[in-house]
C-alpha cells in the first residue's frame, strides 16, 4: 500500500507536507520562544557548571605552566635514572623565574602532594637562589644536589615528570581509593586507608534501605489516600504534606531532639521500662539516625507518585478480581499491585536519587558512621579546598545516578514512570 502512496497536493499545487510544515512553523517558533528562557537557565545553571566541574576535576595545568622548560627537556629523559644536566638546569631556570614572580611556594606545595619532602627540598633551593649562591656558569646539577640530597634521588624527578600532562585522572582514582604509583601504574591504597570506598558503599546502602523503608511505609499510606472518602483523604494528605512544607533544617533538628540520648524517644523507652536509664541506646550520630530522619524526610516523594497512580486505578478492578474468585490477596497481588508499578518505579527512583546525594540530614544526625559521600564532597569543598577532588567525586556521583537511571530504564522502561 505504501508503494502506491502518491504525493498529495493542496489545491494550490503545493505538496501537502510542505504546506503543513509552513503552517506549523509559526507554532514551533512560538513554542521554542516560550521554552527558551528555561533552556537558557538550564544551560547557565546546570550544563555549564557540570562542564566546569568536569574540567576542574581533571585539570592539572598548574605545574605544566610553571615548569615549561623542564617538561620540554624531560621529554627525552627515560625516567629510570637521574636526569641529565639539561633537565636540572631547565628546572633551575623555571624555578628562578617562579621565584621572581613569587609563585615558588605553590609549586612546592603541589609537588609535596605528589611526593613528601618536596616542600623543604624546594625551599632550600629558593633560599640559595635568594642569596645568589648558585653559580650559573658551572654544573647546576652538582650544585643542586649539594643544596639538598633529595635532588640526587630519582623518585623526586619521577614525581615531577608525573605532573607533566595537563590533564590527570588522579582525582578520580583518589575517589576510588587508588593512586598512580611512581612507575605510573594504578594501585590501591592500603586497606586501612580506603575511606572513600567505605563511603560509596555506605551511601548506596543507606540510599537503598531508605528507599525500601519509604516504599514499605508509603505504599499503604498512598493506598489509604487513594481510597478513603474525600474528607478523610484530604486530612491525611495534609498530614503527608505538612512535613514537606516545614524547613528541612527544622525537621532534622526536631529529629535530633527526639533521638538524642536524653531525648524524647529514649525518655519514653526508659519510662515504659524498655531500656535501663543508664543504658540508653544511641539513636543519633550513627546510621540509625540517618535512616530514621531521611526516611521521614523523603517519604512524601514516595507517597505522591504512588498516590497519583493509585488514584487512577478504578476500585471496580479489585472488586472484579474478588468477584471472579480471587482471594483479597490474589486480587491485590495479581490486579492492583501490577498496576501500581509505574508509581513504585517513579517513587523509588526519586527517593533513591535524592537519598544518594543527601547532605544536610546525614551531616547533622549521621555522626561518623552515618555520613554519606556528599558530606565528604562538602568537606573537600569547605575544609581542604580541594575543589578538583570535590568535583571529581561529584561527577562520579552523577555518573552513578545516570547508571541507575539507565538500569531502571532497561528493567522497567522510563515511559512507565508516572510522576502524577
Amino acid at each position, binding site marked *: 500500500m505504501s508503494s502506491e502512496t502518491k504525493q498529495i497536493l493542496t489545491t494550490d499545487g503545493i505538496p501537502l507536507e510542505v504546506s503543513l510544515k509552513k503552517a506549523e512553523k509559526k507554532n514551533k517558533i512560538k513554542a521554542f520562544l516560550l521554552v527558551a528562557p528555561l533552556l537558557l537557565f538550564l544551560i547557565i545553571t546546570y550544563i555549564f557548571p557540570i562542564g566546569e566541574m568536569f574540567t576542574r576535576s581533571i585539570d592539572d595545568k598548574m605545574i605544566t605552566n610553571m615548569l615549561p622548560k623542564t617538561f620540554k627537556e624531560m621529554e627525552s629523559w627515560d625516567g629510570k635514572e637521574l636526569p641529565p644536566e639539561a633537565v636540572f638546569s631547565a628546572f633551575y631556570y623555571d624555578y628562578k623565574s617562579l621565584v621572581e614572580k613569587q609563585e615558588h611556594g605553590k609549586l612546592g606545595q603541589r609537588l609535596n602532594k605528589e611526593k613528601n619532602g618536596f616542600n623543604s627540598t624546594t625551599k632550600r633551593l629558593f633560599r640559595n637562589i635568594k642569596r645568589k649562591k648558585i653559580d650559573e656558569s658551572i654544573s647546576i646539577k652538582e650544585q643542586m644536589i649539594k643544596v639538598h640530597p633529595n635532588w640526587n634521588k630519582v623518585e623526586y624527578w619521577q614525581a615531577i615528570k608525573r605532573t607533566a600532562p595537563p590533564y590527570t585522572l588522579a582525582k578520580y582514582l583518589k575517589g576510588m581509593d587508588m593512586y598512580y604509583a611512581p612507575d605510573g601504574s594504578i594501585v590501591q591504597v592500603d586497606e586501612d586507608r580506603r575511606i572513600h570506598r567505605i563511603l560509596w558503599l555506605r551511601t548506596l546502602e543507606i540510599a537503598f534501605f531508605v528507599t525500601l523503608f519509604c516504599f514499605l511505609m508509603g505504599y499503604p499510606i498512598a493506598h489509604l489516600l487513594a481510597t478513603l472518602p474525600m474528607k478523610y483523604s484530604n486530612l491525611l494528605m495534609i498530614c503527608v504534606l505538612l512535613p514537606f512544607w516545614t524547613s528541612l533544617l527544622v525537621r532534622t533538628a526536631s529529629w535530633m531532639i527526639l533521638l538524642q540520648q536524653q531525648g524524647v524517644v529514649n525518655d519514653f523507652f526508659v519510662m515504659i521500662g524498655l531500656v535501663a536509664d543508664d543504658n540508653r541506646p544511641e539513636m543519633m550520630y550513627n546510621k540509625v539516625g540517618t535512616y530514621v530522619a531521611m526516611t521521614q524526610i523523603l517519604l512524601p516523594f514516595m507517597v505522591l507518585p504512588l498516590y497519583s497512580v493509585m488514584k487512577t486505578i*478504578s476500585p*471496580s*478492578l479489585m*472488586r*472484579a*478480581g*474478588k*468477584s*471472579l*474468585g*480471587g*482471594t*483479597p490477596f*490474589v*486480587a491485590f497481588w*495479581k*490486579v492492583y499491585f*501490577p*498496576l501500581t508499578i509505574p508509581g513504585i518505579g517513579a517513587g523509588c527512583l526519586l527517593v533513591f536519587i535524592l537519598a544518594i546525594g543527601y547532605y544536610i540530614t546525614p551531616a547533622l544526625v549521621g555522626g561518623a558512621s552515618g555520613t554519606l559521600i556528599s558530606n565528604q564532597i562538602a568537606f573537600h569543598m569547605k575544609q581542604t579546598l580541594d575543589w578538583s577532588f570535590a568535583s571529581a567525586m561529584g561527577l562520579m556521583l552523577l555518573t552513578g545516578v545516570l547508571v541507575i537511571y539507565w538500569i531502571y530504564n532497561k528493567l522497567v522502561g522510563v515511559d512507565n514512570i508516572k510522576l502524577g
Partner: protein
Amino acid sequence: MSKNPEFVKFDKVDKSYDGKVLVVKDLQLDIAEGEFITMLGPSGSGKTTCLMMLAGFETPTHGEILLDGNIISNIPPHKRGIGMVFQNYALFPHMTVYENLAFPLRVRKVEKDEIDKKVDKALSMVSLSGFETRMPAQLSGGQQQRVAVARALVFDPAVVLMDEPLGALDKNLRESMQYEIKHIHESIGVTVVYVTHDQSEALTMSNRIAVFNDGKVQQLSNPAELYEKPVNSFVAEFIGENNTFNGEVVDIAKDKCKVKLANSEILANPISVKSKGEKTTVSLRPERALINPTDKMDNMFTGKIEEVIYHGDHTRVRLNLLGSSEFILKVPNSTSNLELKVSQDINIGWNSVDARALDPK
C-alpha cells in the same frame, strides 16, 4: 429439569449506610433459576446496592440473602461464585484478553488445557475468537464489553450480575449488545440479575423487571404487564410515556370510575382507588388515545394542537386538552397521514379501561 423458583432470595433485607437513612427497605424478592431479572429505577433508588449485597461487596443491615437455599450474607465475595459485569467493564488493563478470561479459572486452579478450551468457548460465544492476545486498551468499547461478559461467564457461575453494563456505549451498539446478551442468556440459561436505569433496555431484555424507587420494589412483573398495567403512578411515570390527569373520584363502580378534573369529568379504570372522594392520578399511554376515533369510545374530547414534533417513525403532537397543555399524542407516520397543524382543533378519544386511576402524585 425442575427449576428452583427461589434460586436467589432476598428475605426482608434492609440496608443503611449511615444509620439514619434506609437505602433498601424491607426487600422481599425471589429470583427463579435461569431467569433474567432486571432491577430498574432512577439513580439512588437502591438497585445497585441490592446488586452489591448480592455480590458480597456490601452487607445487609438486616435480613438475609439466600443463594440456592444457602444463606450467603457471611460468605466473602470470592467464595460466592457469582459472575459480575461492571459498569466500566473493569477489565484488567495489564492483562491480555486471554489472561483476563483465564483469571477466574487460574484462581480456581483449573488445568491449562481446560482453561484454553473454556476461554476459547467463551470468546466464540461473544464472537471475539482470535482476540486472545489483544490488550483491553486495543479494543473498542463494544468489544471490551463483550470480553467483560465472557469473563463473567467463563467459570460457569450460577448467577451473573450486570451493573449497567451498556451505559458507556453509543445508542446503536447498546441496542445490538442488548440482543446479544439476551441471546447468550437464552442459550446458556444462566440466572442474570441486571441493573439499569434505562427502561427500554429493561423492557427488551428481561423476563421480569423489578422497578425500584426509594429503596422499595414498586412493581415486579414481566415487561408487558409493567408497561400496560402499572400499579402505581411512579411506575406509570417511569416506564414509557404517560399522560396524567389529577382529580377526585366522584363515582365508582366495579370496573369504571368517574374522575372530576378541574373543569370536566373523565371515565377511568379504578386500580388503586376504592371509594368516592379519593384523590387520584389518571394515567394514559399516549398511543392509546386516538385522533378522530371511529369506534365508540367512552372518553371523547376536543383539544387544540400546541406543537407538532417530527420524530421519523412517528410524530408527537402536544395538545391542550382538558385544561392541560402537556397532553402528548403519538401518531404513526403512515401514508394516510393526517394534516396536523398548530392551533388546529382535533377530536381525541380513548377507552376508560386504558385510563388507569392510580394513587395521587
